């Protein structure tokens, strides 16, 4: 059975906003934010995200696991990509730069020369700010958006019934998978399985994950089939459906959507019209590296 995210009414301003307006706002800010590599602009967006976070009245305890995952993921990706390979960013980060540290490592007989430059470090910091801002923008949605409205939100944004209801199901799939995973983990622990003791090479380790991965995957597939059957039995998809919940825009929703469009247009003008906002390293950092 699908479980919902831990939504509870918090009486916050954010919850009073129409969910469609919130999606539109979130995507507009996302699009605007991704125009920039200049940390000064990115920090402004981070500020917006933090304000939204404060308004949502979501506690740290509720989102701690989410943030831990995001930070580990972001730092991991950035460390790997930016510092060592230098990929995934504007060209100027790749070549040259002010060297901080040069290495000569050998891994599996291959010579690897990750060169840490001021530019790369600064780029890594900018990228983390960017990733954290994007995550923060969307992380609070499950905590503050009424699950009753998931489907109808997409439907009234013009998406077909099938797709809109799929979105509703997809949202609930994630916490359901987490619950099933925990149940399976408990069931296998009760059979003496110790996930902490995974040993051997990569393939051996993956094989040893089978007791967790197989039941969880099979359950997901089977429950997908069951949901399809249950939906078929109640005529889903036979004609254009009614949605029992209705959404109504209010003045503040129009204001928010208008402001989001203005931010996007402004961002595009600044970035492509004025050509401001590309990757930037502060002068003091270059000076410190001896540049």
């Amino acid at each position, binding site marked *: 059975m*699908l479980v919902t995210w831990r939504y509870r009414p918090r009486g916050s301003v954010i919850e009073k906003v129409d969910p469609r307006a919130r999606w539109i706002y979130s995507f507009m800010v996302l699009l605007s934010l991704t125009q920039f590599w200049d940390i000064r602009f990115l920090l402004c967006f981070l500020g917006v995200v933090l304000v939204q976070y404060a308004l949502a009245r979501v506690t740290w305890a509720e989102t701690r696991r989410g943030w831990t995952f995001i930070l580990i993921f972001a730092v991991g990706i950035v460390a790997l990509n930016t510092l060592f390979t230098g990929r995934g960013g504007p060209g100027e980060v790749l070549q040259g730069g002010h060297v901080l540290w040069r290495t000569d490592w050998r891994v599996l007989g291959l010579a690897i020369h990750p060169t840490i430059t001021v530019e790369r470090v600064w780029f890594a910091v900018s990228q983390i700010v960017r990733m954290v801002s994007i995550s923060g923008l969307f992380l609070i949605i499950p905590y503050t958006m009424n699950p009753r409205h998931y489907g109808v939100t997409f439907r009234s944004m013009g998406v077909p019934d099938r797709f809109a209801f799929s979105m509703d199901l997809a949202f609930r799939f994630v916490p359901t998978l987490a619950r099933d995973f925990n149940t399976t983990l408990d069931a296998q622990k009760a059979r*003496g399985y*110790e996930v902490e003791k995974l040993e051997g090479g990569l393939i051996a380790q993956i094989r040893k994950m089978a007791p967790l991965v197989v039941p969880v995957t099979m359950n997901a597939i089977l429950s997908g089939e069951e*949901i399809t059957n*249950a939906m*078929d039995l109640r*005529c889903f998809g036979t004609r254009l459906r009614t*949605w029992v919940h209705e959404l109504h825009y209010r003045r503040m929703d129009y204001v928010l959507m208008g402001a989001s469009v203005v931010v996007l247009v402004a961002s595009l003008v600044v970035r492509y019209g004025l050509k401001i906002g590309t990757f930037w390293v502060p002068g003091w950092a270059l000076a410190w590296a001896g540049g």
Partner: protein
Amino acid sequence: MGPCDNALPLCVRELTFRYRIREQPALRNLSLDLHQGELMLVAGTSGCGKTTLMRCINGLIPRSYRGEQSGSIRIFGEDVRGMSMAWLSQKVGTLLQDPERQIVGSYVLNEVAFGLENLAVPRHEILARVDETLDFLGILKLRDRETFSLSGGEKQKVALAGALAMRPQILLLDEPLASLDSASAQDALALFRRLADSGVAIMLVEHRVEDVLRIGPDTVLYLRDGEPAYFGDAEGMMQALDYHEVKLPAPVVFERAKAQPAPRFEAAVKPDGQETLVSFDHVIFRYDPALPDVLRDVNFTIRKGDVVAMLGANGAGKTTLVKHALGLLKPTEGRVLLEGRDTRELSVAQAARTVGYVFQSPSQMLFAPTVSEELAFGPRNLGHDREQVRRDVVWALDVVNMRDYADSPPLALSFGQQKRISIAAVLAMRSRILMMDEPTAGQDYWNYTAFMDAILQMPGFDAVIFITHDLDLAISYANRIVLVSDGQIAADGSPAEVFVDETLLLRCRVVPTSLLKLNTEKLPVTGTFMRAELLAHAVA
């Protein structure tokens, strides 16, 4: 049977169906009529074709399951094969075995409205019909609750409301009692009777035959290997069927068993009352600081020789309690000692050497390519040597009567078989204490009696604990009864001590059965509780 009457809600003639992936037909030459306001009980062993029959009627065959079908199914004179799903689902409402598998809405209102939304009924009418249906079922107060937070009985009613809101004239109920405590099951049954009396034609598939007999089904169909073994009234069924195969009312079994040789049952686990294996010391538990306590000051000891049946309502805290013994949950306050050691200091894997715990749902643990490998997983984790693992796997397969399936993939087996494999997988670990959560749910009577007999007669366990909603299972096997109610232990003692207090039982949502009544009656002679066959010979 003659040709179909067009006024009949349901008319089946010469129905045979074979799933494309199977060699043998799941149903053979089945003919039946279901009248308006009739309540038909369909029973049979696991895999007898009950579910297939339902799928043929509600359109899931051939829509979702392919195969070869012959014969006809007519609903009000119309052949179902020519009907659209939209038409069919307004005539036929289906309640699947597990309400968890049926509920698609995140909130009760959405769930009940789902079918009507799909039929594009206007919004105001949907809301009116949802309220009307919820009110009819007496659950209007649940309207704005999240579906996943409901209790088992509530989920069942909500799923039923979802089907009823579409105002079907035929209702198919697939083992609707499987996950309910006995009081909820009684409520549900009374409701089905009321629906039938209001004119709905009901086909009720159920293993718990005795429970259904109490609401007076108009007809009974008993299937064996896909063929009708009996079709007639309830009275005739009691005479026609073997009481080893179907659980019949205790007085019937009692009388008939007298003519049979005395059954042999000698429990290997015997009370000695000395060694303490597990002890709960003022245990309080809550999942989250913001949520209420699930266990409230539990003090409880499992001693060597105990066969404990744990009974209580859905959501009373039975599973939570048992998980503490293994250290899967740690007490919020108080402590749990396993062989004298605090479970906080033990890993679950360490505790698993002493306690074997069978989870409720087998699909959450089965993963191996073959049944043998599945069974070897636990003992290998515990470091048993290869020869011992091999011996224990064979032994465990014999106990659950699954030796022929040693090389089959467990994931391809039926639910009942998977459940037995999940029990065998824990048996093979040779733990001192065996704990089983609802071991008989979704199993047919013959099979579960066979494996419970085998487990309890097998030497090797110091204690056996099982959680169940089946009072008769507790009467038949336990030497100690624990009633759990609202996170506390409401009663703990021998069957004779606990079962005499009917008010207490009802407060814990345990409804007395005919076997309980018979045992209470004979208690002055027997001094203990037992199943009807044994009782017949004990008083003779």
